[in-house]
């Protein structure tokens, strides 16, 4: 076996190619502006929550869990949480908050709620609830330069206009005890 190490500089920490043949990155990312340089790998967890764009609701959770894998500037996130009780609903667009990294910012406009990242999103309601489970996933998209992702909320009483979503969570009877949200999203991070 011939090993060529020309031009390799190892700075004395544990980053680089390990004796196991894996690739170790610095614990603190050293961001690269070069398009062909992979400058990060990180895996960890985060705490998802429900929030709103104008004023935050007040609720507590039965459970909250989130996991992520960041490869370069691409972040994969999964999440699952279940609401225990709600004391106030807040206002504005409904959002998932607490994403592990700030999304890339950019200039330009677009439609409502556009942003970096996208996503699948599935909502379950408790068995026996008026509307039961939704069949289709919802859309949710990461807002640029934030750690939030917006999802659209519509009332099923609009007689099927908003497919894949059968329950309003805009009113006090919308979210109920033990409503659960789970899904995943992916986005470009700011670094």
């Amino acid at each position, binding site marked *: *076996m011939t*090993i*060529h*190490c*020309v*031009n*390799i*500089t*190892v*700075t*004395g*920490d544990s*980053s*680089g*190619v*390990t*004796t196991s*043949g894996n*690739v*170790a990155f610095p614990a603190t990312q*050293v961001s*690269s502006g070069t*398009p*062909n*340089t*992979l*400058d*990060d790998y990180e895996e960890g967890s985060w705490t998802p929550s429900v929030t709103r764009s104008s004023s935050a609701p007040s609720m507590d959770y039965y459970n909250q869990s989130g996991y992520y894998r960041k*490869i370069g*500037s*691409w972040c994969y996130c999964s999440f699952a949480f279940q609401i225990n009780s709600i004391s106030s609903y807040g206002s504005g667009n409904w959002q998932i908050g607490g994403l592990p990294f700030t999304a*890339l910012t950019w200039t330009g406009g*677009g*439609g*409502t*709620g*556009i*942003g*970096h*990242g*996208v*996503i*699948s999103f599935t909502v379950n309601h408790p068995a026996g609830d008026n509307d039961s489970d939704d*069949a*289709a*996933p*919802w*859309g949710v*998209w990461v807002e640029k330069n934030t750690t939030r992702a917006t999802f*659209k*909320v*519509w009332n099923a009483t609009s007689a*099927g*206009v*908003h*497919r*894949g*979503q059968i329950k309003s969570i805009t009113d006090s009877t919308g979210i109920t005890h033990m409503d659960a949200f789970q899904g995943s999203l*992916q986005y*470009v991070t700011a670094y």
Partner: protein
Amino acid sequence: MPIYCGDLTVTGTATGITSSGNVAFPAIQSASTDANTLDDYEEGGWTPIITRSGSAPSISYSHQTGWYRKIGSVCHAGFIVQVATNGLTSDGSGSWLLGGLPFASSSTGKGHGIITVTANHSSSGYGSDDAAPWALWLDNSSSAAVFKAWDADSNGLHRGQVQDLNTISNEDSFQGLIHYFTA
């Protein structure tokens, strides 16, 4: 100071482990057939368009943004496209496509890549915003992904889609994400 080189071969160019501890790949990919070799990383932008399989529609856009991250032979591409005011001047024909993907898909396995796509319509459009994402899929050796367009008048048969794309209206916008294997 330990230096770990494993099976790494660096040819004297600016590739390999950098002084920051990152991994620099060649600007032009040197493809590997070894299943356990990561042979590319690339990040950049692309310009998404809405087109059709038969004849292309005539559309002007108020916004087109695409970004991608290619990790080995997997491409993750995000996009935001918005039709300009009075931007659709002819419908074209055939299946609706999201075109302009940054890399062609691989030649094997029809339907590589899976996808979510979310559509927003203008507030005056029929049904306003869709709640559910649409499906979007990519054929073999292609850089344009298909999405289904149905008339909402079929009253519930086609979930997650409330607007016939033959009636694209001002400022309709599309944003989403697609993942696929590159050639």
